[in-house]
C-alpha cells in the first residue's frame, strides 16, 4: 500500500501508517519531503519504506518495525528505539540512534555529530564516517563506523563500544582504545556480512570507557557524610 506524505498534516499521515500496519499491510510512503516525525512508535512485525528523505526523529521510539529510508534522514533517526531495524540509504543527521535501547540502525552514508548519544543498547552501523562526540555518554550497545570518526569519539562513555575502521580524529574524554579480540572481530564481521558489508581486511579500533568518570575520586562513603 502506498501513502503519500506530501504536505498533508503529519498526524494524518502517521494515523494512516498505523492503521495500515495494524491491518498487517506493508507500506510505502512516497514524497516524505524531509518531513519530521514520520513513523513514530511503530509495532513489530511491520515494514515501512520511505521513498526519499525524512526529517527529524523518523522511526523514533520504534517498537519492532523494519523501516527503510531510501535517502537521507534528519536528526535523531530511530531515537529511543527498543527493537527493530532501520536502514538509511543516504546520510543521517545529528544524534542518529540517540538513547536507543535495542535494534539496529544501518546508515549507508555518513552520520552527523553525536551518533548513538546516550544509547542503551543495540547496534548502529555507519558505512561512512561518524561526526564529533559520537557515542557521548552511551551506556551500552555498539557503534560501528566503517569510514572513520571525527573529534571526541566515544566521549564520556558509561559503557558500550565504539568500533571504528579508518582514522579516528581524536578520542573523547574518558575513552580508551583497546585491542579487539579475534572472537569479537569475528562476531562483528558476521553482523556486517549479513548486511553485505563483510570485509576481512579492516583494521579495527575498539574504543571503550576508561571508567575514570564512573566515580568521583573518592569512593569512601564517609567522605560524603561531612556536611
Amino acid at each position, binding site marked *: 500500500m502506498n501513502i503519500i506524505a506530501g504536505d498533508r498534516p503529519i498526524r494524518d499521515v502517521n494515523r494512516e501508517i498505523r492503521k495500515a500496519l495494524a491491518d498487517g499491510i506493508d507500506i510505502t510512503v512516497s514524497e516524505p519531503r524531509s518531513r519530521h516525525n514520520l513513523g513514530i512508535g511503530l509495532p513489530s512485525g511491520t515494514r515501512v519504506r520511505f521513498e526519499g528523505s525524512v526529517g527529524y526523529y523518523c522511526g523514533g521510539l520504534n517498537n519492532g518495525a523494519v523501516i527503510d529510508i531510501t535517502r537521507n534522514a534528519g536528526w535523531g533517526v530511530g531515537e529511543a528505539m527498543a527493537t527493530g531495524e532501520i536502514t538509511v540509504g543516504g546520510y543521517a543527521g545529528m544524534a542518529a540512534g540517540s538513547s536507543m535501547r535495542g535494534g539496529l540502525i544501518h546508515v549507508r552514508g555518513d552520520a552527523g555529530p553525536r551518533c548513538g548519544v546516550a544509547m542503551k543498547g543495540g547496534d548502529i552501523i555507519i558505512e561512512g564516517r561518524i561526526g564529533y562526540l559520537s557515542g557521548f555518554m552511551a551506556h551500552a550497545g555498539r557503534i560501528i563506523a566503517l569510514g572513520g570518526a571525527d573529534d571526541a569519539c566515544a566521549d564520556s562513555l558509561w559503557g558500550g563500544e565504539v568500533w571504528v575502521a579508518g582514522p579516528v580524529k581524536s578520542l573523547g574524554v574518558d575513552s580508551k582504545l583497546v585491542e579487539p579480540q579475534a572472537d569479537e572481530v569475528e562476531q562483528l564481521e558476521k553482523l556486517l556480512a549479513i548486511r553485505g558489508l563483510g570485509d576481512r581486511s579492516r583494521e579495527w579500533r575498539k574504543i571503550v570507557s576508561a571508567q575514570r568518570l*564512573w566515580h568521583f575520586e573518592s569512593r569512601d562513603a564517609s567522605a560524603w557524610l561531612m556536611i
Partner: protein
Amino acid sequence: MADDMSKPYKYPFNAPTEEAVAMSDVAVDGRPIGVPASYDRGRSVSWTPETISDVHALSRLGRYQIRGFNTFNDRMPTLDDLVFVPATMTRLPLEGYRESCDTRTVLGNRPGLVECPIELDIPIYIASMSFGALSASAKAALGYGASKVGTMTCTGEGGMLEAEREASTRLVYQMTPSRYMLDLDHLRRADGIEIVVGQGAKPGTGGLLLGMKVSDPVAQMRSLPIGVDQRSTVRHPDFLGADDMQVKIEELREATEYKVPIFLKMGATRPRFDVAIAAKAGVDVIVVDGAEGGTGASPELLLNHTGIPTMSAIRAAREALDDCGMSGEVSLVAAGGIRSGTDAAKCLALGADAVMIGTAALIALGCNAPCYVDDYEALGTSPGRCHHCHTGLCPVGITTQEPALEKRLDIPSASERVARFLTAMTMEITLLAKACGKSTVHNLEVEDLRALSLQASAFTGVKLAGIDRTYEW
C-alpha cells in the same frame, strides 16, 4: 606625621601615668586594653567560622561538596514575606467553616491537542522524584497517598516503576536528558509526559545519584554499572534549542496519539523569557521550579547559589503567558520550597494554576521524623536537621536503596500521612480563599496579597502592606 595630634601643650596638672590611662582595673580579663572587642569574636564579614571551615573542607577534599535537601542560602526570601488581605468592606468573604470552595484543577486542557487533560481534585500534586533518589516504598506511598485525595505523582528521572504506576491513579512520566529506560509502553501508560530542561535545585546541571544509591535494581532500570556515581546529562541528546524541541513535542504527541498533555519542567532562571519560549514551543503545562526546590543530591554551591526564588518566578511566568496570550491555554505549575497550604495559596494568588510539592511530601512520609535517632547521629545530624539524602543512608527509609533501611518505611501509614497532609494543605488553601471571598481557589489573585518587605514587593509586584502601592523603581 600629618595625623600626629601631639601638639606642644601643657596640662595645668601633672601628666597621667600610662597605667592610669590604660584603666587596667576595668579591662576585660585576658584582653589588654587597647585591643578592640572584635579581636575576641573575629567578626570578619567574609571569613566567618563557616566560610573558614568551608575552605578547610575544600582544601582537604579537592572537590566541591555534595549534599541533598535544598538551599541553605539565608538570603533567599520566603513566602512568609507575603500576607493575604481578606475581604473586608470592598469584598464579601465566604463562610470559612461552612461554604464550599472549588479545588478542582485541570492541567493541559487543549482541545484538539490533548484528548485527556489531567483533572485533579486538588491544586497540589507530588513533584517528580526518581526511584533511585527515593526508595521504591517511598515512591509507592506517595502514589497511594496522592491517589486517595485525587491527585497525581510524577516518575522522576529513573524510569517508570511498576509499584508507582500501580499506586498512582494519575502519573506523569518524566523524560529527562539522560533518557533512562525510555520505553514506549511506559509513555503510553502515563497520564502526561514531562520534558525536563532543568530543575530548581540545580538549573543548568544534570541529575546526580551517588554510587551508594546505584543499587542493582536502580542500575538495571538506568542501564548503568552498579555503584557508579551517576552524573546525568543536562542537554537532551536529540534536540538543542526551542525550535528542535517543538519537533520533539510533536513526536511525543504522535507516540501517544495526542492523548496526554506534555509538560515542560524548568528551573527558575529567566522565566519571563523561558516561559514564553516554552509556550511557543507548544507544551501544554509549564512547571517552574524555584531555587528553593529540593533534590536528592547536588553540588552544594548550585543549591545555594543558582536560580531565582519561587515567588519571583511565578509572577514573571504568569506575565509571560499573559503577554503571549497563552494564559488559559497553557497551564502554569509552581514548585520549589512550598511548605504548606498557606504557601500554596500564595503561589496560586501569584499566578500558578497548581503547585507541586516534593520535600514537603517527603517530610509527610516521615523524613526527619524523631525516630532511629542513633542513625541520624551516625550521619552527624539529628532529626529535624537531616539533609543527608545523598548518602543513601536515610534513617527513615525514604531516600535510600538499602533494603534494611527501606523496610522502616511502612507504606500504609506513610501513604495515609501523605493523604492527610495533602488534605490539610487543601483545607488551608480553601480557608484563605474563602476569607478572600473566592468560591474557587483558582480565583485567588495578586490583589489578595500584600508584601511585608520591599524585597518581596519588588520581586513579585505585590503591593506593599499599608501604603498599598507596588514598589516602584
